[in-house]
């Protein structure tokens, strides 16, 4: 691997921050801390930093909780990329990890059911779900996807790449 080439590819894509490899709650907090230290006025590429942090937290905790839910051993591996496209004034956050392919349908359905909702509808749905206690205090993305979508300015997107062995690379992307 040519590091210079990789570096210039990342720069071309407007990448501000990337983490690939082992993730944990502690690493998540270090990522947030690092990004927070970079900003004096609580904005990242002109976007409200709280929105960026909230999205990163939900995405990464999804990854961590998924692993805990499955009860699988070993280190958790994921990739997180934060970047900014000047041309469209878009800040993007992408998070990817391996999941069991059977879980694809559930995730896709959840995201499709909320990603095109208007701001007011999202807010209503979020409040309803929080009130109902459905999925209450459980791990897994009940309110999580709604929280991400509320902080995004475009429909969030998921992509899946099956490896043919019952596992899929799952990426979730949000733009602000």
């Amino acid at each position: 691997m040519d590091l210079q080439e990789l570096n210039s590819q990342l720069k071309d894509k407007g990448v501000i921050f990337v983490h690939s490899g082992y993730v944990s709650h502690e690493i998540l907090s270090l990522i947030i801390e690092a990004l927070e230290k970079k900003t004096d006025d609580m904005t990242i590429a002109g976007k409200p930093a709280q929105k960026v942090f909230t999205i990163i937290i939900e995405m990464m905790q999804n990854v961590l909780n998924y692993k805990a839910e499955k009860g699988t051993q070993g280190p958790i591996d994921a990739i997180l990329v934060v970047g900014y496209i000047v041309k469209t004034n878009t800040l993007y956050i992408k998070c990817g990890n391996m999941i069991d392919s059977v879980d694809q349908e559930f995730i896709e359905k959840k995201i499709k059911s909320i990603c095109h909702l208007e701001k007011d509808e999202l807010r209503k749905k979020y409040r309803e779900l929080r009130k109902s206690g459905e999925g209450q205090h459980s791990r897994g993305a009940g309110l999580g996807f709604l929280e991400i979508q509320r902080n995004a300015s475009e429909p969030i997107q998921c992509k899946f790449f099956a490896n043919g062995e019952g596992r899929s690379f799952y990426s979730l992307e949000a733009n602000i």
Partner: protein
Amino acid sequence: MSNFQIDQTNTTPSISGSRETSSFEIRGKCYPEDTPKFFNPFIFWLKEYLAIDASELTATFDIQYFNSSSSKFFFDIFDMLDEARQNGHKIIINWEYAAENESSQEAGEDFIEDFEAMTINLVVKGQTL
């Protein structure tokens, strides 16, 4: 009953509750590794507080950002306070946020809509009213 105190960390807020001042304050960022484990001791303390004839309680929330499972716990705390209000306690809630923190402002507005009968003040930090 004793006062409640936990210090702020990188991922959890400080929580201080005092019987003398009839108040509690939750301040900081909130995305614990294990949200129930973090909140349960405080929920327990608050239950005890509200069980005694605490006629007044001022609650202050000053949360820069939080994860969705913490949001659920904040809701539960509001719910407990609302129930106490219905039982005759005088409850005042201050939801503080920095002027530029739109997400926190919206979160406060959500609680106002969810708990219409409660006294919930949105307080912009660094501005005198």
